[in-house]
């Protein structure tokens, strides 16, 4: 017989249930780690990305010499870390002569690498170097706005990919109900050339404008940097198809002919086929008979009707 193990403690069971695949996913966790060598710039980039995503990320602080996302065989330990920490995004920093200040952002599907983008960090400015009124500082876990500027994000393959990955990395929890008072941050990305973008994190101030829509004002709070796309790897077509599946309940058909009214409640429309009053056969009034017979016939038919009614009433 098949042997089955169940966790003895409820806490463990709940923890395992949290990791189980869900019909509707709300958010992805991020794993932040680095290779054998990092630079000072890269260290602060990684810590600041961690600060931005504090609520749903895990940061590893040890060197990882077996992690090489783009090489075959270099992804095994990365995939293991993903399984261990239940993360489906990663940011991997490494620094070498060939690729200085290198940042690999990638995604997992089912704890296997889905896609990868490699970027070089240039002109990095950390959060500390910006001076602003600290009361505007964005709160952790708030839903950010995104502004992508430039035609490169549409035409160039690499930037298009990078745009999607950045959106996935920073968009936070997928929500349906949003508190408008909690909006306080914006990510601005501008395409500078075919492989270079300017990335900046800004705080958002809502100012009165006299209408219901407040006037937006951006205050740069950092980090800001230039990202140069180096290598990138798109997902397989069949893997992409698999990963883009949505819950079947979400694509439910619209209910026809039923509407709701705040006063009258549920209203339904019913369609009845045309009654065709003009072509209804009328009662056969016999003609050309003697009066008695005609009356007798009519009486007979009436009797029948009455009997029928009696039977029905019984």
């Amino acid at each position, binding site marked *: 017989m098949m042997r*089955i193990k169940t966790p003895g403690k409820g806490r463990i069971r709940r923890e395992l249930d949290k990791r189980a695949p869900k019909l509707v996913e709300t958010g992805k966790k991020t794993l932040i780690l680095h290779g054998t060598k990092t630079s000072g710039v890269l260290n602060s980039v990684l810590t600041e990305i961690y600060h931005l995503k504090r609520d749903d990320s895990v940061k590893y602080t040890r060197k990882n010499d077996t992690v090489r996302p783009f090489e075959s065989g270099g992804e095994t330990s990365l995939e293991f870390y993903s399984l261990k920490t239940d993360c489906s995004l990663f940011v991997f920093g490494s620094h070498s002569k060939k690729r200085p200040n290198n940042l690999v952002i990638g995604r997992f599907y089912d704890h296997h690498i889905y896609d990868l983008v490699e970027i070089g960090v240039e002109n990095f400015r950390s959060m500390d170097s910006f001076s602003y009124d600290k009361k505007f500082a964005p709160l952790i876990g708030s839903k950010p706005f995104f*502004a*992508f*500027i430039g035609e490169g994000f549409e035409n160039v393959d690499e930037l298009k990919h990078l745009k999607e990955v950045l959106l996935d990395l920073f968009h936070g929890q997928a929500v349906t109900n949003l508190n408008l008072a909690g909006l306080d941050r914006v990510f*601005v990305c501008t395409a500078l050339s075919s492989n270079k973008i300017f990335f900046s994190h800004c705080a958002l101030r809502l100012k009165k404008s006299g209408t219901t*829509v407040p006037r937006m004002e951006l205050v740069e709070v950092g980090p800001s940097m230039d990202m140069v796309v180096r290598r990138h790897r798109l997902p397989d077509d069949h893997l992409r198809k698999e990963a883009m599946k949505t819950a079947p309940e979400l694509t439910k058909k619209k209910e026809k002919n039923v509407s709701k009214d705040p006063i009258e409640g549920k209203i339904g429309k019913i369609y009845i086929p045309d009654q065709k009053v003009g072509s209804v056969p009328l009662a056969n009034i016999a003609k050309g008979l003697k009066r008695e017979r005609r009356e007798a016939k009519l009486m007979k038919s009436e009797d029948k009707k009455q009997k029928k009614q009696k039977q029905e009433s019984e």
Partner: protein
Amino acid sequence: MAEAQYEVDLGNLMAFDPHHRFVSPPSSREELSKASIEHGTKLVQAIADVLFSLPSREDQDGPIVTLPAPTTKLPRAKPLPKPRPPTNWEVFAQKKGIQKRKKEKLVFDDNTESWKRRHGYDRVNDDNDIPIIEAKATDEPGTDPFAERRKEKKGRVDKQEKNRLHNLKQAAKVGALPSHIQLAATALPITGTQSMPKKISKDELQNVAGMAATATASGGKFDKKLPGEKPPKHEKKYRKFLPAVEGSGMGSMERQQTEKVLNKLISKDSHEILNVEKAVNMYNVKSDKRQQKKQGGKSSSSSRLKPDKKSFKKSSNKKSPYKGKGKSK
């Protein structure tokens, strides 16, 4: 007019301007960041125009808005969970139209005249609470009614466990095991995609055991057989050597074999066995190769300007038609 240019994805609070181009490329960093933030403000304002005009409901913390579904689709992190197949009971209940109904957790116990739990420790109608069971006329002498009750209860529990395992097995077949349940054979928690390890069948095991048995010096001849172990499939030798000494019966077999081969070669249709064309082709190809080697050695030393590839290609082209013919026949 301005909003129409931007692509706004309200579900992700994202705006994208595919038409923007810097009028003059910004010379310094400050100018660049200033310009992009200025333009970013316009984009954010475009999102806000739509966002703040959505119907909202007031809450303690502020107005709450229901966002539409995002238009840019992002990949899932994990595969879609598969629905669990209905258990045997659920199939039965569906057929009979039996509906679930809520039962209270606490039940009044008539024996002790107090409210007790329906299930679990210190429950209602607990076997431990019954001091006396009245004897019936049908009772057989020598049986313990208490032990019988306990046995019945254990039987019911065992049956339920069996049913549970059966249902889990059905679920595992479809790949819809609950995530907290772990098959003993797999080390990692089940995420819904790992398939069950394949069970080794009895025959496969026996084959392996049989092969292992022949690994001794005697070929497993003098080994003790385990109960249920089958003899190895090939007990005897694979090759047979016929006696070289002539005689009758088996002795003449060797002679017959060699004669058969000889006759084939010497018979008048022997040209059919020897494919002359093929042989000629092979000879030609070999001689070609020999010549090439000689030429290649010379050419590499004499004319370095000539690319090697070209000469190689030409010769290969020459060869290929011959080869094709030879193969087809």
